């Protein structure tokens, strides 16, 4: 099975794709969810088989390349690759997707476009799996764009809502800005090294020979690729689309905007990491430094904004942006394995949190404002417990929750970064903020008095709580392979043989993390306990709160600068079109008309006049002559007689 799937890797993305098409073709409401779930479950089994195959040897890597088309001398080759990075992503994506598919059966039960929803979900899953196993930057880009398309379709799923349609457009266009950079990177890479394959038996772009050919261009290629990652992973300054994307149905938010799609940017950087680190001195290169600082800014800004949001999904969205920033920092400082581990752990607990929020929203009759909830602890026990596990994993409560180990590892990696210690301290602050805003959310939603929306809340059906339990279980059990005592996943991702060292379990970093998380949660409980529907921060610092609640006015800033410029350019083009170019066209048209008028009058006055004169003369002559032809036979006779008389007289005159 394991060997078989390695040579049939294409089956993993193909299955959900076929299911997606099948659902659209059948258009049967009953079959839709079943087909999608079966497709996803089989994909999960195949992914697990592929994962088992990669366990065989450390640094396992198998790729299949094939020629897509030949263009003159050049053959464009695509390929699929299976290595630890791809394998863990496959398992994570298929597992999280499966949970979300099952959850959606309950969440979307009342929606009339149930069938379409599952077709899109399956399609999305197929595209994302394609991104993961692509062995060619071009194939990756194709799947990347398909993921973007799926995201567009799903964010705008409730098309009758203008805000959803606008959010879908915003997401699509904003990520497109980053994708322009990505596309330029592809062209640049192909122009320089003549190949887009990652691994090709020594000739791939990520292998030694390829990197040598690339030379100094690697810096620019890496930066341009990072543009794409910034767009897709919602990094500053292109993060604005991600919170708006919460307009989509909650399972979509969980699947796309938390667990999988936004991870594509982080995955991309990890995949082409050799290009980013090409020519590194002490593990530092210009592109990696950019990655670190962008990540730091993103993580802090969005954690602060999350503090002042009232929409339960928006808080999670900003939390996602913040965590993605953290992963970018990790990649930038050289902790690739740590970043990917956090990506996987985050995939589980963020999907859990989003599905939990979906359950809360469902239970509170589509209410999303946390200030109108409260006291849901007793009404929704399963949701409460699983949500608490997700919250603790996200905050990084040590020992039992997956997020803690990965965060600790990232903090450790940042502390070793040679150029600056600033990212390390800022990330420590980020940990406190994360614990703080998650505690705030917990207190608002589950504790205190029951406010308006919580009066008639009810627990969700088992089809929705089931996936929550599975994901909560994953969020805890996953920590087993993350502990420093048995850093199995770390070694697996780094291509080393796993080792076991119990003395590594308790490190100074652990105490630090524990202290910071305790500080965050403690502050949160202190601030928000008994605060009711009002926010203590709003009372203490109204200006700051408004600044954060309005998302630092970044949307307005873009509206006032870039969009203003775009609108100005549009208006200028309109003006130029209307008056300048149109004027030129009109001028030429006028000249043409002038000539036409001249020839017309020449025709009418000169040529027509000649013809008219000639015909007029002929007609006048005819009229005169026809006047003589009176039809009176006696007149003719008289004329003959007169003529004869004249002849006689002439004859007489002659003689």
């Amino acid at each position: 099975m394991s060997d078989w799937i390695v040579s049939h890797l294409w089956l993993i993305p193909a299955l959900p794709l076929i299911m997606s098409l099948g659902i659209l073709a059948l258009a049967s409401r009953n079959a839709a969810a079943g087909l999608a779930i079966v497709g996803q479950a089989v994909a999960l089994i195949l992914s697990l088989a592929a994962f088992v195959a990669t366990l065989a040897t450390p640094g396992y890597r198998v790729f299949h390349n094939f020629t897509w088309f030949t263009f003159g001398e050049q053959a464009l080759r695509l390929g699929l690759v299976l290595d630890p990075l791809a394998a863990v992503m496959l398992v994570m994506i298929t597992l999280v997707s499966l949970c979300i598919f099952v959850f959606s059966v309950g969440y979307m039960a009342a929606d009339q476009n149930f069938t379409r929803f599952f077709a899109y979900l399956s399609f999305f899953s197929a595209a994302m799996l394609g991104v993961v196993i692509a062995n060619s930057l071009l194939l990756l880009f194709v799947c990347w764009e398909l993921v973007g398309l799926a995201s567009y379709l799903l964010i705008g799923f409730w098309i009758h809502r203008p805000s959803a349609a606008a959010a879908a457009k915003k997401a699509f266009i904003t990520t497109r800005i980053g994708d322009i950079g990505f596309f330029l990177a592809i062209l640049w890479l192909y122009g320089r090294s003549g190949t887009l394959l990652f691994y090709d038996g020594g000739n791939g772009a990520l292998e030694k020979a390829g990197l040598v050919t690339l030379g100094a261009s690697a810096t620019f290629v890496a930066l341009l690729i990072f543009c794409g990652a910034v767009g897709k992973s919602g990094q500053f300054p292109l993060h604005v689309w991600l919170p708006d994307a919460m307009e989509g149905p909650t399972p979509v938010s969980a699947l796309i905007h938390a667990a999988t799609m936004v991870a594509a940017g982080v995955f991309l950087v990890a995949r082409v990491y050799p290009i980013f680190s090409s020519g590194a001195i002490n593990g530092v290169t210009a592109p990696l430094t950019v990655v670190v600082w962008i990540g730091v800014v993103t993580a802090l800004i969005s954690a602060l904004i999350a503090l002042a949001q009232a929409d339960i999904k928006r808080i999670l969205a900003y939390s996602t942006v913040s965590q993605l920033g953290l992963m970018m920092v990790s990649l930038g400082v050289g902790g690739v394995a740590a970043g990917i581990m956090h990506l996987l752990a985050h995939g589980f607990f963020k999907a859990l949190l989003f599905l939990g929020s979906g359950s809360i929203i469902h239970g509170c009759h589509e209410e999303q404002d946390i200030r109108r909830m409260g006291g849901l602890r007793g009404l929704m026990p399963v949701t409460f417990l699983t949500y608490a596990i997700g919250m603790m994993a996200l905050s990084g409560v040590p020992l039992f929750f997956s997020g803690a180990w990965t965060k600790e590892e990232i903090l450790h990696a940042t502390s070793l970064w040679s150029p600056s210690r600033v990212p390390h301290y800022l990330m420590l602050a980020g940990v406190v903020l994360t614990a703080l805003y998650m505690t705030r959310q917990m207190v608002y939603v589950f504790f205190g008095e029951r406010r308006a929306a919580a009066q008639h809340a009810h627990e969700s059906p088992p089809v929705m709580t089931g996936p929550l339990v599975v994901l909560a279980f994953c969020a805890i059990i996953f920590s087993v392979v993350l502990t420093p005592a048995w850093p199995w996943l770390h070694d697996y991702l780094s291509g080393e043989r796993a080792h076991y060292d119990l003395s590594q379990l308790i490190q100074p970093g652990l105490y630090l993390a524990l202290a910071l998380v305790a500080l965050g949660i403690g502050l949160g409980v202190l601030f928000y306990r008994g605060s009711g529907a009002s926010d203590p921060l709003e009372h203490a610092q109204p200006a700051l709160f408004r600044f954060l609640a309005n998302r630092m006015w970044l949307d307005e800033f873009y509206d006032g600068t870039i969009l203003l410029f775009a609108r100005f350019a549009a208006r200028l083009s309109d003006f130029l079109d209307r008056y300048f170019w149109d004027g030129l066209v009109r001028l030429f048209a006028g000249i043409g008309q002038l000539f036409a008028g001249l020839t017309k009058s020449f025709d009418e006055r000169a040529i027509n006049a000649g013809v008219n004169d000639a015909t007029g003369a002929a007609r006048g002559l005819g009229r005169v002559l026809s006047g003589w032809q009176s039809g009176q036979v006696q007149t003719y006779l008289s004329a003959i007689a007169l003529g004869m008389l004249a002849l006689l007289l002439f004859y007489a005159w002659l003689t």
Partner: protein
Amino acid sequence: MTPTLQFFLIVSAALFCIGLLAALSRRHAIFILIGIEMMLAAAGLNFIAFWRFGPRPAPPTGVMVTIFAIAIAAAEAAVGLALVIAVYRHYRTTNVDQLDHLKG
């Protein structure tokens, strides 16, 4: 008194003029036809007169030509009368003033 050539020529010219006048002034097609016959008769009379008072009056050449001319004139009169009858049947008139369909 013996008739002379001049006498015949004057009679002939008078006859011709009367015929011409009839042909030009009468409105009835039959009378015009009669006028034309009179002009033909004047021409015939001229032939006879020039033959009789000419240098060789012995062979009857002038008489023969005139007899032929009268025979042809009879045929012409028959055709002319047939035309007049056809016209009358078609237009219910023989007034040549009204028969102006060939007007230009």
